[in-house]
């Protein structure tokens, strides 16, 4: 028996899958092979470590949506791939940022109109866009027409239609209504959106990539072309030149985007109409009645006094709002920071650049939400714990994180 065979059997034994008849030959090998014995002995430890890896969480609405369709007998429908936004993986903006929160309980408010306004000079927006995906022969595959209205603070209405199928989404702080082929669902008691400003209007932090010169004039607005590379996939974004600046962005307006595989364009996003700082009627954000209500239990409530780090000492990171979660955790909305190291009671964790994942720091849960466009968010349990928030990553590590998010094919 060679080492690999022995390790297959040892591995199967650990899984309870080994045929008893083969136990003897495994024992015989292990008795005379230190490396394989060490391998077999370490398997339980590996299982313990593997159990500590958090899993992907399905959207909380999944059971409701499935149930709504059980009795319908409706044909399955699969949406088109959503545009994958370029991640705001910053390259050079990363500096050692440290904020110390002494964990007394925070005052909690939903993101305020002031906070939202502080993030942008644009307080209302209407944009109409066309999103097209292309098949391998370069022919348009799916076309989605989208109209989006935004009004500070964080009210967003999105109407979209793909292949005759319509979707309506209305978002307000703590609330999200969706009407599509699955039915009508009203999510209440939600944590406020981490993107009170919608893409394409966004306070961008920095961009992993760089400008490749001027882009076309879109609807009368000159653009800069920003090129991004992820896992062999190239994207080019056309960004409003007037509000955009590489590093030190305060806001940007993305007016077009192309995604490539090699030299082949696989998706485009084209702005057809644009208006901002115009009157947008509140009635657009009124939620229709009669939807299935799913309550997530979070509510804004005063919890005490927030000993928050002043924005000043944190270069590139300014807190703009705090909110209470349903389990008493505090959620901080920060502007301008990037990949962040969370430290609680001397333990550290490095949340990934995923959009909504939870990290445990000791027994304390911390969630870092880094929307690809929008506000980084740090969520942590409150109490008497010292919480530090930093963004200490060097560009090579950011590249590694980008690689994980967008792995190359054929790995």
């Amino acid at each position, binding site marked *: 028996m060679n080492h690999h065979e022995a*390790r297959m059997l040892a591995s199967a034994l650990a899984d309870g899958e080994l045929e008893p008849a083969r136990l003897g030959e495994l024992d015989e090998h292990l008795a005379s092979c230190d490396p394989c014995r060490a391998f077999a002995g370490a398997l339980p430890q590996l299982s313990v470590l593997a159990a500590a890896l958090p899993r992907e969480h399905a959207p909380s609405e999944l059971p409701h949506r*499935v149930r709504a369709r059980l009795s319908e007998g409706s044909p399955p429908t699969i949406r088109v791939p*959503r545009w994958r936004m370029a991640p705001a993986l910053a390259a050079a903006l990363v500096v050692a940022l440290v904020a110390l929160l002494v964990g007394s309980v925070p005052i909690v408010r939903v993101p305020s109109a002031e906070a939202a306004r502080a993030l942008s000079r644009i307080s209302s927006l209407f944009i109409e866009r066309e999103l097209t995906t292309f098949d391998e022969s370069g022919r348009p595959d799916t076309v989605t027409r989208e109209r989006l209205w935004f009004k500070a603070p964080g009210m967003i209405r999105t109407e979209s239609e793909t292949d005759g199928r319509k979707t309506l989404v209305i978002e307000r702080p703590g609330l999200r209504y969706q009407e599509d082929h699955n039915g009508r669902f009203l999510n209440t008691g939600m944590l406020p959106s981490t993107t009170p400003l919608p893409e394409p209007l966004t306070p961008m932090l920095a961009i992993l990539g760089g400008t490749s010169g001027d882009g076309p004039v879109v609807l009368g607005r000159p653009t800069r072309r920003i090129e991004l590379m992820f896992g062999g996939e190239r994207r080019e974004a056309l960004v409003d030149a007037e509000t955009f600046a590489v590093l030190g962005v305060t806001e940007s307006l993305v007016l077009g985007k192309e995604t490539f595989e090699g030299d082949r364009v696989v998706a485009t996003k084209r702005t057809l109409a644009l208006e901002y700082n115009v009157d947008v009627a509140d009635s657009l954000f009124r939620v229709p009645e009669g939807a299935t209500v799913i309550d997530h239990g979070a509510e804004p409530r005063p919890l005490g006094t927030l000993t928050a780090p002043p924005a000043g000492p944190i270069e590139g990171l300014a807190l703009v709002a705090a909110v209470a979660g349903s389990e008493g955790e505090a959620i901080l909305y920060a502007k301008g920071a990037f990949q962040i190291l969370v430290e609680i009671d001397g333990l550290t964790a490095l949340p*990934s650049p995923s959009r909504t994942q939870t990290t*445990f720091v000791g027994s304390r849960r911390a969630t870092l939400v880094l929307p690809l466009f929008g506000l980084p968010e740090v969520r942590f349990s409150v109490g008497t714990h010292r919480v530090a928030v930093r963004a200490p990553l060097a560009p090579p590590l950011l590249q590694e994180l980008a690689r994980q998010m967008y792995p190359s094919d054929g*790995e």
Partner: protein
Amino acid sequence: MDEAPDRAAGLPEDEAGFTALVREHGDAIFGLALRRVGDRGIAEDLAQETFLRAWRARAKYRGEASVRGWLCTIAVNVVRDWARRKGRRPAESFEPVFVDVASSADDPAARAEVAEAIGRLRTALGLLPANHREMFLLRERDGLSYAEIASVLSCPIGTVMSGLARARERLLEAVSG
């Protein structure tokens, strides 16, 4: 691993019971789809379709496999059908995993050591061949048997045995630094 699969348990016949089943296995099915399509919206649609197919086929479930293993096999077929319709190969993506410091360890040095080991495990997982990584996750996190993993990945059981051993070899090398 989350929990032992409920082998030989029947499937609920009523909608409320089936919805509970969606709650129980939703994360595993969603995660499996997400690792293949790399888009949360599409993964949710595919998870929905998986459960709807399972609902329609519930009378055919005989308990030979665990419910989760049976659902995973359906999910892989759903993803395959989707990929065929879209004219694309399902991507093998990797959701980044996270440092989780074992809270039971009282000694800060020990906790740091565990955190470091998990960090190395996370990195090494990302470097595994996609099929080995999937075998490892289906076994360790979803608790599938070798036969179920073989069914999900459409490969012989021997390939699962060999792949798991190779995955563990590489992961242990990484974890032990």
